[in-house]
Structure formats: structure tokens, C-alpha cells
């Protein structure tokens, strides 16, 4: 039995290493000293690792501004998404049974609309609204809660809350928004954190919206900055990968930071 256990543990470790490999390879390649020929044999670290590229990427591009643009997008998109999706989820949970089912079916139907099919017509609409080439074109999906999936997540969480709690809140004189903020949302904390993280990752890494709906370089976000860099210096791998690492530091950092919260709820939900 014990050798079985050891085998299992080894296999799990191997899988974990395999999944880490691409990220590790990215980082080690970005440490390659500028100007030197690329190694033709596999090495763990370059001979003289250097952080020089991380400085260069800020010199070649206004990467600081692009980072701020990305931050602005998520600073707008995450709260708006959380509000709209949790409102909708709560509203759905408070509807009579038949109406609930209708809204769930509607949400599923919207969920199945392929995003690709909305690209060009959304472009036309944003132009009409004056959102083209502004941050609002990037944040736009937040106004519908970014995805019906998040609405359904909140619906699922709020559905579990017994009606008695809402009645009690109402008796205490709480209005709808107060109930949402003080009663419902705290009871769906894990869902809210999950949606916040997923939304953050989505908007931070969104390449297609800035590609299609932005024109001025000054408003670019990090993903399209990567493309610009690629056009500038196609074969400077270390440079491009340094920029790629920079782009992924924030979402990964956030993800690792929030791990304890998910682990705690995972342990609660998955404990056998």
C-alpha cells in the first residue's frame, strides 16, 4: 500500500512540474542577457542571468501607461460586474418559481451566443455610442455582468438563502439595496470573491476588445502592448518574454493571494 502511495505522490508531483514548466521556461528565457547568442542546449538558467530586459521594456514602450490602462479597465469592470451580476442573481432568486426558470433559460441562451458573432456589430454600436477608442468599449460587457455565468453563480448562491431571512430584513426596515449589501452579499462571499477574480483575469488579459475597439496607442492595455512589442522586435525573445512575464505577474499574484480563501471553502465543500 505504501509503495502505491509513493507512486501516487510521485505522479502528482510530476504533473505539477509539467504544468509549471511553460511558466518557468518563460521566466528563465526572460533572464537571458541582451545581445548574447541564444543557447543551443537545455539549461536551467542562463549563464549570466540578468533583469536588464525588465528595464528595457519600459524604455521601448510606454509600458507604465499601458499598465495603468489595464488597471483602469479592471478598476471599472470588476465593481460594475460584481454589482450587476449579484443584483441580477439576487433578483432572480427572489422571483416566483416559474419566472426564475424563465430567467435561467434566458441566461443560458445568452451564454450560448458565440462571442465571435458579436465582434463586428458591437464595433458598430460602440461607434454610435461614442465609446469607440475609449475605455468604455473595453469595459462594456461589465454592464451586463460580463457573463450570464456569473449571474447564475450568484443566483445559485442566493437561491440557498431561506426566504425567512429576507422577511426578517424587511421587517427591520431594510430596503432592497440594503438587504443586498448587508444580508445577501456577505452570505455569498466565496462566490463574490470567485467572480471578482475571474472578472479581473478576464479583463486584464483581454486581447480582442482592445484590438478591435481601440485605435490610439495611448489607450492600449498590456495584451496589445505585447503585440506592439512583437512587431517592434520579433526576434528579441528575452525582451518579449520579459514583457509577457510582466503582464502575467498581477493576475497570478492575485490568484495566489486569494488561494487561502478558496482552499478554506474547498475544504468545507469537498470534505468527505
Amino acid at each position, binding site marked *: 500500500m505504501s509503495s502505491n502511495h509513493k507512486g*501516487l505522490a510521485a505522479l*502528482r508531483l510530476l504533473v*505539477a512540474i509539467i*504544468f509549471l514548466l*511553460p*511558466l518557468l*521556461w*518563460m521566466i528563465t528565457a526572460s533572464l537571458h542577457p541582451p545581445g548574447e547568442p541564444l543557447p*543551443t*542546449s*537545455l539549461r536551467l538558467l542562463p549563464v549570466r542571468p540578468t533583469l536588464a530586459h525588465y528595464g528595457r521594456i519600459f524604455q521601448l514602450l510606454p509600458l507604465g501607461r499601458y499598465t495603468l490602462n489595464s488597471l483602469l479597465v479592471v478598476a471599472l469592470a470588476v465593481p460594475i460586474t460584481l454589482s*450587476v451580476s449579484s443584483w*441580477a442573481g*439576487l*433578483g*432572480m432568486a427572489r*422571483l416566483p418559481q416559474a419566472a426564475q426558470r424563465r*430567467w*435561467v*433559460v*434566458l441566461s443560458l441562451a*445568452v451564454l*450560448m*451566443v*458565440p*462571442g*465571435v*458573432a*458579436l465582434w*463586428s*456589430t458591437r*464595433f*458598430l454600436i460602440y461607434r454610435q455610442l461614442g465609446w469607440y477608442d475609449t475605455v468604455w468599449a473595453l469595459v462594456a*460587457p461589465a*454592464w*451586463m*455582468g460580463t457573463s450570464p455565468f456569473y449571474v*447564475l453563480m450568484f443566483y445559485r448562491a442566493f437561491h440557498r438563502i431561506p426566504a425567512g431571512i429576507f422577511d426578517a430584513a*424587511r421587517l427591520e426596515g431594510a430596503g*432592497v439595496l440594503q438587504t*443586498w449589501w448587508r444580508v445577501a452579499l456577505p452570505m455569498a462571499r466565496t462566490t463574490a470573491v470567485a467572480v471578482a477574480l475571474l472578472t479581473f*483575469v478576464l479583463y486584464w488579459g483581454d*486581447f480582442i476588445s482592445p*484590438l478591435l475597439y481601440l485605435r490610439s496607442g495611448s489607450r492600449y492595455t498590456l*495584451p496589445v502592448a*505585447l*503585440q506592439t512589442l*512583437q512587431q517592434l522586435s520579433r526576434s528579441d*525573445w528575452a525582451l*518579449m*518574454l520579459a514583457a*509577457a512575464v510582466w*503582464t*502575467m505577474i498581477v*493576475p497570478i499574484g492575485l*490568484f*495566489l493571494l486569494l*488561494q487561502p480563501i478558496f482552499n478554506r471553502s474547498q475544504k468545507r465543500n*469537498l470534505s*468527505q
Partner: protein
Amino acid sequence: MLTRFSLTNLSHQTRWRLLLLPYAVGIIFLVVIPALLSFGLAFFHYDALSSPVWAGTLNFVLAYTDELFSLSIRNSLSLILIPVPLRVLGAFLLARLMQGNGRFLTWFRSIIYLPTVVPAAAFALAWLWILNPLYGPLNLLLQTIGLNPPAWLVDPVWAKPSLVLMGLWQIGEGFIVSLAALYDIPAELEDVARIDGAGSVALLGRIILPLIAPILLLLAFRDAIFTFQESFTHIYLMTRGGPYYATYTLPYFIYEQGFDLRAFGPASAAMWVLYALTGLIVAALYVVARQWHIGTTEETFVL
């Protein structure tokens, strides 16, 4: 529940309904109207500069006879039909592997999910480097083992497999969903089966898989949509549809028509096909779901 008809009761009810308003308005402006527009534009010539000109079914004929269009559909399908079941199966097997208790298990699970947190553009550049035929770590690794590795993205035959390969690292979402589904199965079931003498493989195949199948099906659908769209970023940054149109997919065709050539008419006609394909898949899902007697309960909405 209303015992008295009074203004206060009514407005409270209405105020709950109002919570749904932003969501509803958002859906109308961001999904319904663009969708309807794309249905309509398919019948016009439109380049976003001058007014639309009626074109009847010309765009559909053009698309139908356009070699690139049919090629893009074939490429998209081949990037979905085999890879998606592979990924879902991989996610399920991984979840099975990572099920249970173990010291570092939560960390391992996070590691598996980690690549999905990486922005698509960064992931694309990373793999552009990894798959580099001369200096990329993958080929260096394969060479040290003694293999003669292909040119990956530069080779028309290996370009699509390259995309499939890199997609395997992003099964984190499916992994988490499969894990949750596995934990939903009562432990007693497994114990009883083992007492009855079932080996691990039989346990997996006869008991667990059938129970999880509905979730895996939903996962497959979601994964198909995800791969279909997200691959655009990867393709745009890594191959631009090449080499020799090997990775020229339907989203890429739509992008080129709409944003490079400003031909919104043909782009919209292509979108019809997309809607039709999606509709077919949904219908198929629905039929299969009814076969398995999946009701419209919350349980199945573990998307």
C-alpha cells in the same frame, strides 16, 4: 404571500424586480441588438463608411463559393472535434488523480489551474518561444532525449497540433469542475464497489464515468466554445492563420472580413454559419440531455 394589497407591498416587490434591470438592459444592448444586427447585415454591402446597400443573398453566395470560408470552417472543426474530448478527458483524469487527501494537494491543484490565469497574449508569446524550432526549450528537450522534433508552428502539418498541445495546459477550469463533480459522488458508492471486488479501472468506467457524464458533456460544450474563441488570440499572435492557412479558422475569417477588409456583409453571413453551428450543438446537447433525463434543476447548471 401577500396578505394585503397595499402600495408598500407592491413597490417592494417591484424593487426586487428592478435589480434585474441593468442585466436585462445590458443583454439587450450588448447581445440581442448586435446579434440581430449581424443577422440583418448579412443581406447588405456595408463598409462602415457609407450607408448599407442591399445585396440580397449575394454575401451568402460569396461565402459559399469562397474557398477560404470553407477552409476556415474545416480548420475550426478540426481544432474542436478531437481536441475538445481529449481535453475534457484529460481534465477528468487529472481530477481523479488529484482527488483525495495529500499534503501538497491544494498546491498541486492551484498549479494546474495556474496557466488559465495567464493572459492569452502572454501565453501565446510564451509558447511561441517554447515551440521555437531552433532555440525553444521543447525542441532542446526533445533533442536531448534523442528525438528529431518537428518545426511546430512553422510546419503546415504541425501547426494545428501545436495549438492543441498548448491548449492542454489550460484545462484548469474543466479540472476544477470535474473535481467538484467527483466530490459530489458519495464516498459510500466507491466503498461498496470496492467491497464487491471492483478494480480501479472498472470502478472508473462502470460507476464513476456514467455518473459524471452529464457534467462532462456540459464541460465539452463550454470547452468547445472557449477553444473556438480564445484560440483567435493565440492564432493572431503566433501564426496569423498560417502557415499556408493551416490555422486559418472561422473567427479569423470573420476578423479579416470585418476588420481588415471592412466587409461587414460577408462577415455577417459567416456569422450565420456560426449561429447555425452553435444551434446544432445546443440541439444535440438538448437531445442527449433528455435521453439522460436531466431535468432543469439547479444541479445541472454546474457550468
